[in-house]
């Protein structure tokens, strides 16, 4: 029995979620596969977006998966790090922009 919540080997078992709810599971994977196909955005661009979101979601499975996916596509480590900074900038920006709410409240409450 695993002593931690996350086990790297569990990523390979992702597909087994269909076993307990076949229709929804299959629909999800079909959708997921379609999303990452070449479209108005290239598969390479989508891979970088996925990597950035994997970090903001702090999903270790997704980080493993999309780091490897990026390497397979020839994406460089500089490109990967820049993508993560985009995620981090939005995360910190999202925190800081709420500062306006704090300022509004202070201005309202203070005489």
């Amino acid at each position, binding site marked *: 029995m695993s002593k931690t919540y996350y086990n790297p080997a569990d990523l*390979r078992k992702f597909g087994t979620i269909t076993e307990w709810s076949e229709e929804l599971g299959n629909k999800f994977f079909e959708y997921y596969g379609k999303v990452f196909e070449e479209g108005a955005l*290239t*598969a*390479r661009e989508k891979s970088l977006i996925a990597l950035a979101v994997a970090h903001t979601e702090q999903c270790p499975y997704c980080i493993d998966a999309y780091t*490897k996916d990026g*390497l*397979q*596509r*020839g994406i*460089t480590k500089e490109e990967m790090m820049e993508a993560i900074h985009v995620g981090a900038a939005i995360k910190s920006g999202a925190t800081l922009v709420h500062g306006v709410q704090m300022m509004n409240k202070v201005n309202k409450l203070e005489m």
Partner: protein
Amino acid sequence: MNKKSLLARNNDLANTKRQLEVLSNGQFASGELPTFAKKIAATNQFPLRPKKLEILQINMGYMCNQVCAHCHVDAGPDRKEIMTLKTMQECLNVIKKTGAHTLDLTGGAPEMNPNFKWFVEEAAKLGINDFIVRSNLTIIRANKKFHDLPKFFKKHSIHVVSSMPHWTRGKTDKQRGDGVFDKSIKALQELNAVGYGIPGSDLKLDLVYNPSGAFLPGNQKALESDFKKALKEEFNINFNSLFAITNLPISRFLDYLIASENYEDYMYALVEAYNPEAVKNVMCTNTLSISWDGWLYDCDFNQMLNLKVNSSVKHISEYNEELLQNRNISINQHCYGCTAGAGSSCQGVVA
């Protein structure tokens, strides 16, 4: 980065029996992953049999000026095994009568064999119309005596196939050694200068991409377009096609996988990406591999694992195409490397 072959380092994996043990044990012995034989049997593709022979791939020797981290040949400057004139003559006797239309020269660095040019000239006289030389590029810049290679290749209309793991210096040098990127760029420019890879030219220059680590190659077309764009913009280099080749878990790449604790995941990824369509066109079905000392193999990988052809004819001196074509191809778990995703061969994807 190691500057010596596994053999010179007395590494356990220089022993091919040890490599085959590794490939048969672990996940495959426990049944967690199916053996390659079992997997192809499920789609009625066992035993694997040759189709029409198209390519004779001759390994001119394991000597090389580079010591690439992923090399399946375990080639390097310390490897002294190179083809003798006697074996070359035996190869020429076979070239006279073979049904194969392509001669594929590989190594090591085939150009380092002192009789390389003589052999090419003799084979050209015999009317081979498709000549491939697998050149590591840096050899052209390694020594003055190799500077005329681009002109020599051109004279015999040789199809040049060269390794290039990435369009950035860092990734290339990490896999192939310090300074390899700059020398490779210079060599590519020299090949372009004599007409190789230029649009409209008949002189073909293809690049081979191997992943520089424990991951599989991405889409060949997408990588080709990224390589073309980057090499053209930064260095004004032209080439024809990019072949994306999967690293097989043998020799130095196997050593790397084990040392970096990536072996199990890598084998799992290969098995997961198994594509029965790729099995139909694996290169062992249309190629015969000949070693520097004249032994016959299903492919260059089986050569490096010392898995000789499963036939009464095992050496070039007793070559008999009809007998050889009636054989079962030797397989093991490394074969998953050629059937993953779009498949992999010395000519790139197969499915």
